[in-house]
């Protein structure tokens, strides 16, 4: 079974990075995965995005008609990707920048003030890791421990100083994701520990 996640937002919000962390975590969890930066029409209109597809079998199509999870870190991303979420899927919106719920009945909407939480954690650029934490809390596509190992792997190689803040941001996101859904709740929160 394949699960697809799109990370979208402004350039500089670390979306491609968060996607890569998820992809590395999938490798650590012995899963198949494909990470792809935005292509085609998705490259326009004030959004940067990447798609991560995780599965048990080698990944087929690198492009998805419908995503299982959309992580939308700014208003244009919610507008663009909100409608691409498959029924029963999850839409995580950055409520620091997105004021209203998207308003679909058939998907779980989770509003997380990612920018505010990132600022509390010490760095605006950690928004996407906060969102990734919330995502893993609601949809344990990979184990949280695998995400932490992936963060260590990716960040320690590039910016060892940033490692502690990155891990903290992910933990904050995990906690935020386990809180009750403030949007139009649908599916119950699955067990994050897996």
């Amino acid at each position, binding site marked *: 079974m394949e699960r697809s996640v799109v990370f979208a937002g402004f350039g500089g919000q670390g979306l491609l990075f968060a996607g890569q962390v998820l992809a590395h975590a*999938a490798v650590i969890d*012995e899963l*198949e*995965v494909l990470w792809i*930066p935005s292509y*085609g029409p998705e490259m326009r209109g004030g959004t940067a995005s990447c798609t991560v597809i995780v599965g048990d079998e080698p990944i*087929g*199509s690198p*492009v998805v*008609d419908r995503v299982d999870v959309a992580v939308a870190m700014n208003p244009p991303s919610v507008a663009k990707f909100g409608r691409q979420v498959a029924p029963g899927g999850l839409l995580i919106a950055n409520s620091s920048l997105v004021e209203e719920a998207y308003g679909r009945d058939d998907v779980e909407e989770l509003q997380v003030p990612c920018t505010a939480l990132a600022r509390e954690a010490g760095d605006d650029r950690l928004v996407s890791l906060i969102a990734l934490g919330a995502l893993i809390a609601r949809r344990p596509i990979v184990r949280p421990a695998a995400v932490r190992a992936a963060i260590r792997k990716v960040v320690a190689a590039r910016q060892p100083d940033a490692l502690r803040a990155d891990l903290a941001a992910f933990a904050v996101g995990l906690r935020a994701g386990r809180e009750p859904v403030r949007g139009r709740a649908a599916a119950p929160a699955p067990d994050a520990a897996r």
Partner: protein
Amino acid sequence: MTKRRRVLMKGNEAIAEAAIRASCDAYFGYPITPQAELFEWMARRMPEEGRVFVQAESELGAINMALGAAATGARVLVSSSGPGISLMGEAMSYLAGSELPVVVVDVMRGGPGLGSIGPSQSDYLLATKGHGHGDYRVPVLAPSSIAEAMELVATAFELAERYRTPVFILADGILGQAMEPVEQRYRDPPRSEAPWAVGGAAGRPPRVVRSLHLEPEALEAHNERLQAKYREIAGGEVRWAGERLDDADLAIVAYGTAARVARTAVARARAEGLRPGLFRPITLWPFPERELAEVASRVRGVLVVELSAGQMLEDVRLAVEGRLPVAFHGRTGGMVPTPDGVIDALRRLEARVRPAWTLPLVEAAALDRRPDPDTFSLFGDDAWRPLETTPRGER
């Protein structure tokens, strides 16, 4: 579950590293999207390995540097994308005429002209049908995953040296830009002898690497030798993969990224009651025409899926020889077919072939059917249209 040692690699970088592990001596390139990471990987890694990296003044410069290095017997890689590949057409002809082994990676982007930097498969005809002037062929390898691309780099060097020919690896922007986990299994094929290579005529008669044969008889003899070589390649180097074809009544033909979209579509379509299989050419030249003809004899219709306006479609039609309907679904300009789009096209093909097949041929031909715009059919409209007009949803 057994622990596998896998690393996440970007396609462009995996191709570059595979070439390095295959003992590539020299790389020559020029920046162009979407293959820049390949070029940059080589800029960093080749000097680390004590090998040659040169940023050329143009793709003309790069491919001609490759020509010079290959003439000495070196193992050489160049890479580019559409506009740069076009510039290389001149030297590709000289490489073929001079019988020099060079591996050329084309990370295809949207065209024509400057086009876009989005993924595309619009260089199929360029790669398989000519590119430069003169009567020549170039083996063309089309990976559909990053792991396969790594393996095919080694294969490309092998073919290039065994047959003394340039070899194309046709990837696309998605394969170049995507990351997938790969096992770090690299292959370093043994080198073929190169008794033709230049290196200074010490203790032997001088050697000349050239494509000029001004005497018509001599050039014809040279051409006949080249053609014999191409026949040998066509006879022995065809590669393809089939998936779920055993019980299929429809066959999708697709390569590279399009084949992955098709694989997902096959799985979904089967869940919805259709019975498609996937025929995936790995060598685009030589095209697996006999193999496809055999598959075509067992199904009722063929759907070609490409990130183009219908280029491989021509080879599929030649292989099928009009024995059954060949439909086409493609997107261009950096747009990519989606699994649902492929399934829609499959349904239209299914609807077209199902009733017709139950009727005698004459009756079927007499039916005045409304032609599907994206379906070339034996029955009725012969005016196939290259661009599919599948509804594109709300886009």
